[in-house]
């Protein structure tokens, strides 16, 4: 099998609700290398979220194979997936999915504790992450008191708590205003620059444009898979991209 960090072969998902069967993902082959940042785009209903959920073991595949770190994982049980995710896969959702009855600090420490870290290790890692994401002062706060952008940064910290091999994110800026989206994008990019492999489903072209590669899904299949073009940089900055008329 391929030496890629993540790879799929003929991955498919069929939703059955008798007598109808809807094929949401119809035979997807993808490969993600170590440290690579791949964005998945496509119209709504093209199967991109379903694909991402299968990659993270949140939904079982109907057909095909998923290989993570050289190991076949598509047939793992729910419990085995949960353990695998704890160590190797971080997940960020569009609607943050933070635990509302826990503080920000506890949300970020929990994954480390579940993975067997000592409370002291978990706390150190949490302090480091919240510091980096500019949330050190919010550690004792309940997530609901934070803005959407801050909640998404906490979710990112939580996803990175165990230094996963792979970060999966489903529309991470989909529910944020422009300024917050820009902050989250900057953090994602910094995370990637430090060598974090990421697969992001996104409708936001700002996010996709920072990826190494963009996959375009259409009708449950990969319609395009290409590196993001490096066009000549605008020499005159803003002046090259906008034109004011009188």
């Amino acid at each position, binding site marked *: 099998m391929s030496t890629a960090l993540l790879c799929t072969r003929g991955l498919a998902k069929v939703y059955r609700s008798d007598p109808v069967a809807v094929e949401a993902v119809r035979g997807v082959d993808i490969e993600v290398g170590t440290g690579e940042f791949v964005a998945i785009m*496509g119209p709504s209903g093209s199967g991109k979220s379903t694909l991402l959920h299968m990659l993270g073991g949140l939904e079982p595949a109907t057909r095909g194979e998923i290989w993570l770190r050289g190991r076949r994982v598509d047939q793992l049980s729910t419990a085995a997936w949960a353990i695998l995710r704890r160590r190797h896969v971080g997940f960020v959702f569009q609607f943050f999915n933070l635990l509302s009855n826990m503080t920000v600090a506890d949300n970020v420490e929990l994954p480390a504790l579940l993975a067997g870290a000592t409370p002291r290790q978990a706390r150190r890692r949490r302090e480091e992450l919240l510091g980096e994401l500019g949330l050190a002062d919010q550690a004792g706060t309940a997530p609901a008191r934070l803005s959407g952008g801050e909640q998404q940064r906490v979710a990112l910290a939580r996803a990175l708590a165990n230094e996963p091999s792979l970060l999966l994110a489903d529309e991470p800026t989909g529910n944020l205003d422009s300024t917050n989206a820009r902050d989250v994008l900057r953090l994602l990019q910094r995370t990637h620059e430090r060598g974090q492999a990421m697969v992001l489903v996104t409708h*936001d*072209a700002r996010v996709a444009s920072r990826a190494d590669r963009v996959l375009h899904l259409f009708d449950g299949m990969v*319609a395009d898979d290409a590196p993001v*073009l490096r066009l000549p940089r605008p020499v005159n*900055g*803003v002046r090259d991209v906008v034109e004011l008329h009188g």
Partner: protein
Amino acid sequence: MRLHLLALLAKEPAHGYELKLALEQTFGEAYPSPNIGQIYVTLKRLEQDGLVRSEDVEQTTRPNKRVYELTPAGRETLRAWVDEPSDGPRIRDEFFTKLVLAPLAGLADRMELINSQRRHYLGIMRNLTGLTPSSTPAGLLIEGAILHLQADLDWLERCQEELV
């Protein structure tokens, strides 16, 4: 540039070089580099059209400078410009005609056309998101360009859904 100069003169009378500085300070690098010669030519034309008038002001150590001010006709023209809604952005019809016509002539496959156009837009987007604006107006213009490009990409998806 005519209306931009009128707008600056509506605030206070000024000479050519002051107008150039004012444009640079207001828009930062976003303004298509105001050239002083062009500003003088424009002012002369505005004067011929009766929208501004000018007067030589003596300076002791330097040559006289010509100071311009708005006329009532100029103020009216400016008012009309401000009150009139601006045109919306135009659809990128060049790509659209390609998309519709090229497959008919057997010149290209629509999916491939859309894919290559999307790649191009994402390349532009990558450059836009990498720019560091020098001022608030410049930042807002970049954001405007980003939003337009996002709309173009969304529209590309609609074309794909309907035509492919």
